[in-house]
């Protein structure tokens, strides 16, 4: 078995196994171990790809190159740390009576299936399979959003299902159009013309521009819905706030990345055949709009998880903007930002989960005095938010700084809205954060059992990336940048 097969099959087998044993105390451990094996295999695969270059699997179903291998590793890593967090968290939820045995089985099984579908989407070489895996990622998480069966949770899950379903259907139409254009020019072997390697290698330059532009619009709307771009974002805060917290961590930290990955892959094809910047400009527009609007919405939130999901929209908008801008520096910054945002945001959601268990509510007005009741949670939330707001010396600062530099180089005027957006988002986060952490704790607030290890690991990694990017990671990003933008950052 190749390393790729181990990476893909482990979560699938784990998911099937957990259907039967997910409710036992053992289930949480099996979940963690499965994720750990997946992460180990993906890391080994990453080192292999790093040493020997891109790999095409037998039958050409899967393709691993510098761009997706690091996302595979990141997905497996955050999946693992969230699983470590989820084990005691879900046990606590069972004790509080919010989750029954059947639902716990569903939860554990779907957790693994979700990881599987994301890894499949990342490693698929066939654009159709990419779409199928993206849709499967929605389907596996939709019942997890409604896990608590409160009216709000069911409403959130319904919205998530319908909006993402409609959105992703547009992406399927876009995929059909790409296939149509490719079949028209390349013709030869029908089943080959949907393979990304074939499209990007030989044929991209020859595809019909009119059809490809049309296809990109549909693909942008489709995958953009899953990225959470404004105005297609309205499912995102609902789904992220109503589901169990480990789910919010992986949705925010990983699923959005995978959707953006799909969009960037398609953009690489479109750019090659259009010879214009249409795709880039569209992505810049949507990205900047999302960045600004989500920053403003941060000020109006009453629910702590909703607030941080708007922060996710804001950061996804920034990344979309950067990938749209193209250019080596912007692409490098966006890749780095994808990594540090995933790590930071999942750490924040883990902390938020503990904080809302501590306070017994997700309402910002009722979460008070975290620092005094349980300093570990207070510090975790404070440092996480400082990191996500883009303060030095954390990694988010570096990536945002690079993106700002890239903007000044190619679109100087857009640096102004970008800076304003940073400021607005910062204010929005901290006006809510300050009383939650330093306020007067309500009488009788007791500390909860919290596992802050994943948070600490993530934040230390983000700090490390901010202080010095390790050499192998940097050359990894450079390989991916070269692949996407065709040049190295100077």
């Amino acid at each position, binding site marked *: 078995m190749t390393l790729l097969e181990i990476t893909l099959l482990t979560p699938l087998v784990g998911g099937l196994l957990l259907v039967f044993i997910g409710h036992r105390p053992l289930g949480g451990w099996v979940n963690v171990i499965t994720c750990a094996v997946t992460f180990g295999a993906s890391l080994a695969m990453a080192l292999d790809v790093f040493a020997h270059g891109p790999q095409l699997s037998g039958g050409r179903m899967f393709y691993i190159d510098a761009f997706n291998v690091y996302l595979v590793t990141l997905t497996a890593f955050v999946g693992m740390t969230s699983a470590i967090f989820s084990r005691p968290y879900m046990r606590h939820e069972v004790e*509080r*009576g*919010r989750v029954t045995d059947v639902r716990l089985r569903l939860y554990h099984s779907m957790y693994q299936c979700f990881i599987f579908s994301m890894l499949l989407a990342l490693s698929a070489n*066939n654009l*159709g*399979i990419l*779409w*199928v895996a993206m*849709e*499967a990622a929605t*389907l596996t998480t*939709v*019942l997890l959003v*409604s896990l*608590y*069966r*409160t*009216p*709000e949770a*069911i*409403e*959130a*899950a*319904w*919205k998530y*299902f*319908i909006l993402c*379903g*409609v959105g992703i*259907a547009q992406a*399927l*139409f876009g995929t*059909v*159009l790409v*296939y*149509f*254009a490719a*079949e*028209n020019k390349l013709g030869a072997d*029908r*089943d080959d013309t*949907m393979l990304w390697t074939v499209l990007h290698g030989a044929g991209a330059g020859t595809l*019909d521009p*009119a*059809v490809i532009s*049309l296809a990109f619009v549909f693909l942008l709307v489709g995958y953009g819905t899953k990225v959470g771009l404004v105005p297609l974002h309205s499912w995102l*805060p*609902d789904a992220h*706030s*109503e589901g169990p917290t480990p789910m919010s961590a992986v949705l925010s930290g990983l699923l959005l990345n995978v959707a953006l990955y799909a969009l960037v892959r398609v953009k690489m094809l479109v750019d090659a055949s259009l010879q214009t910047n249409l795709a880039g400009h569209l992505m810049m527009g949507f990205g900047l709009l999302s960045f600004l609007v989500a920053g403003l*919405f941060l000020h*109006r939130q*009453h*629910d702590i998880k909703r607030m941080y999901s708007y922060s996710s929209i804001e950061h996804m908008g920034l990344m979309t903007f950067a990938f749209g801008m193209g250019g080596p520096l912007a692409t490098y910054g966006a890749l780095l930002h994808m990594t540090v945002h995933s790590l930071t945001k999942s750490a924040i959601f883990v902390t938020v989960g503990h904080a*809302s268990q501590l306070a*017994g*509510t*997700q*309402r910002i007005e*009722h979460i008070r005095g975290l620092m005094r009741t349980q300093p570990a949670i207070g510090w975790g939330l404070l440092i996480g938010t400082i990191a996500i707001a883009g303060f030095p010396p954390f990694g988010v600062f570096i990536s945002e700084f690079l993106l700002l530099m890239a903007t000044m180089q190619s679109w100087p005027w857009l640096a102004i809205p970008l800076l304003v957006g940073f400021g607005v988002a910062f204010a929005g986060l901290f006006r809510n954060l300050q009383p939650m952490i330093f306020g007067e704790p309500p009488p009788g607030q007791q500390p909860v059992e919290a596992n802050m290890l994943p948070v600490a690991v993530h934040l230390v990694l983000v700090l490390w990336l901010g202080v010095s990017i390790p050499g192998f990671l940097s050359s990894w990003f450079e390989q991916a940048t070269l692949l996407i933008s065709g040049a190295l950052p100077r």
Partner: protein
Amino acid sequence: MELAELSLFSQAIILFAALVLFTSFIMLGQTRTLPLIFTFAWQGLLLAVVTVLVAYVSDHPDLYVSAALTVVLKVVLIPWLLYRLSVRLNMQYDAEVILHPSLLLLAGAGLVIFSYYVALPIVRLSGLATRNTIAVSIAVELIGMLLMCVRRTAVAQVIGFMSMENGLFFSAVVSTYGMPLIVELGVAFDVLVAAILFGVFFIQLRDSFDSLDVVRLNRLSESDAPMPSHDEAGAPPPGGRA
């Protein structure tokens, strides 16, 4: 090209494609639950007929598999599931009120014209016998979306969703003679899982809201008014009837 110059089978494809679009319009105007489900089944059947005809004309045996999948999923399984659920939830005779039916149908007609406009670059490039029906397939998809936007019951939204899926499948068949088989199978699997999940949701919605009227799904919104929920996040789900 004159229609009369086409072969008999190609003309039949155009005829059945038009009938598929016709069922889309029927669904747009149909307010009762059961006839809506039956119309959806009819649309699936007509689509399967088109697929078989295209498979025969173009000599693509893969498409027979796609047609069989369509019959199993969209003609038998999903309508049966919806029928069983609507009987079980006792809403088979429910009818919803459409505010401006004529306006809605006109909007549908507008979407058809728009689809012809969208399809122009595709048709220009295509040399397939079925290129005349590409615009129709886009129209079926867009009308499915319109159905989802204007209807307020969960059943009608599901039908709209599946009808959109029909339109997408249709467009793949007529513009490229279907996608590679593995992709078709993957898409069919997703549709099947989606249909089952919709069934689960009907029951969850019914239990929590006592209705499948999605207008009642209005608790989560961006407003400064404090939301009623979340204060008692630890409380067990209500589950009871309002």
